[in-house]
């Protein structure tokens, strides 16, 4: 059974060198700050063997946007969840692209940009993926009244 790490367990892994980057703890996730996130991900991938980026996704929390990373370690058979807050407010959300760490984020980050409007800095090909080029707005945001 893949062990899903709890928030405090993830903190234990990160505490050695990335303690100051942890913003908050959840039950089964850790929210980290956007600065130097690539160092943290590199550490997770190379030192901690979380070599498979299962999924990247994003949530519109209305007050802010967050990006959610599901990481899996094939060797240890463990998985964990990292979240990044894209800054307060809904204008111009930005995070660093993890494409240099995990190639698998390429299409997923483009999809998030397309549907949620979060810019990924450092992505080589930040274009819309599913919708056409001049589509107005980002459909998965909670901007639309139901």
């Amino acid at each position, binding site marked *: *059974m*893949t062990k899903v790490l709890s928030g405090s367990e993830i903190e234990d892994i990160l505490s050695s060198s990335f303690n100051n980057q942890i913003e908050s703890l959840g*039950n089964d996730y850790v929210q980290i700050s956007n600065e130097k996130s690539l160092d943290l991900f590199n550490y997770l991938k190379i030192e901690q063997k979380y*070599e*498979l*980026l*299962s*999924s990247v*996704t*994003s*949530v*519109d929390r209305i007050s802010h946007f967050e990006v*959610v990373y*599901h990481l899996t370690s*094939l060797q240890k*058979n463990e998985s964990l*969840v990292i979240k990044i807050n894209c800054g307060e407010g809904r204008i111009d959300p930005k995070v660093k692209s993890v494409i240099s760490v*995990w*190639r*698998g*984020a*390429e*299409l*997923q980050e483009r*999809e998030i940009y397309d*549907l949620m409007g979060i810019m990924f800095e450092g992505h080589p090909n930040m274009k*819309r*993926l*599913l*919708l*056409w080029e001049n589509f107005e707005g980002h*459909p*998965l945001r909670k901007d639309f009244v*139901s």
Partner: protein
Amino acid sequence: MSTELVTMNIGPIHPSTHGVFRMRVTFDGETIIDAEPIIGYLHRGSEKLAEERTYTQIVTLTDRMDYTASMTNNQAYILSVEKLSGITPSDRGVWLRMIAAELQRIAAHSVAIGFLINDLGAWHTPLLYLLREREKILELFEMMCGARITNSYLRPGGVFMDAPDEFWPSLNKFLDDMPNRLDDIENLLTDNEIILARTQNVAILKKEDAINASITGPMLRASGVDWDLRHRNPYDYYEKISFRRPLGTVGDNNDRYLVRLHEIRESLKIVEQCLDLIEPGPVKPEEVPFLVRPPEGESYVPIEAPKGELGFYLVSDGGISPFRCHVRAPSLINLTLLRDMVIGYKIADLFVTFGSIDVNMGEVDR
């Protein structure tokens, strides 16, 4: 000898793009020097639609994602909902949905192999033999739930109805017959010199590259990584089942074909074991409400779908519909390396490689 480069738009309407996939490919003579996948022609906004539906209604949306494997889509979604709302499924319901999921895997792999061989240029003959077997599975599904392709069979807590009595003899007949049909297919295809010449050492995907690009499913196993979520993260009752995991040795198109073919055999064994273990009982707990209202929170339960790791990331705000529903679509993510895999090969290899990745446009675009 270098020639003038030719850029071609292949798709979205093309016989072997398996739907409405488009590639902008640059050729130097017959050799591919660049390929860019362009998708979105089947985008229906399922994730947004899910935010407006109740948890049970979303089951019908999941059917239409990977429409060759609706049962496993249902399963991934239902497992996420069950984890989110803390529902314990009933035993018979779980066994039934495992049987359904494994049958669906056989059907989906049959389609994958059939169309792969079709992309190789065989004039529909292996495809039609495989589709005939798939048809039998679809008939079994029709018995189970009344639908053939868009099943919507699973519900939070199990399945919505028990399989009828006639289902079990038909299933046994299928299980007895299918290994022979697979032998036929292997006789026709596996040692065929042309198929070997066309698929071996083409579009080799290395272990490290595959993991780094988040590639999962038969494609990852064809590269030699022993990662099957049914084995490493046994959801439902897969811990009670024993099965082998076929792995490729080189990671080329031929391995991807072989892995799928052998997974069909393993799936048949899994169904047989499920048949031994299933017992009468309710297919769904009585206490599961019609309108599921999970507490605030989030869940992500990955499962081994025919195409790879499929998971629904659900965020609940305590309402009757999810606050956010994200699908981790294996088809989309497996496409990441298409460009790297085909560069330097010939035009014909492009389609074979694309076929061996086995994407389903309904799932790529959602």
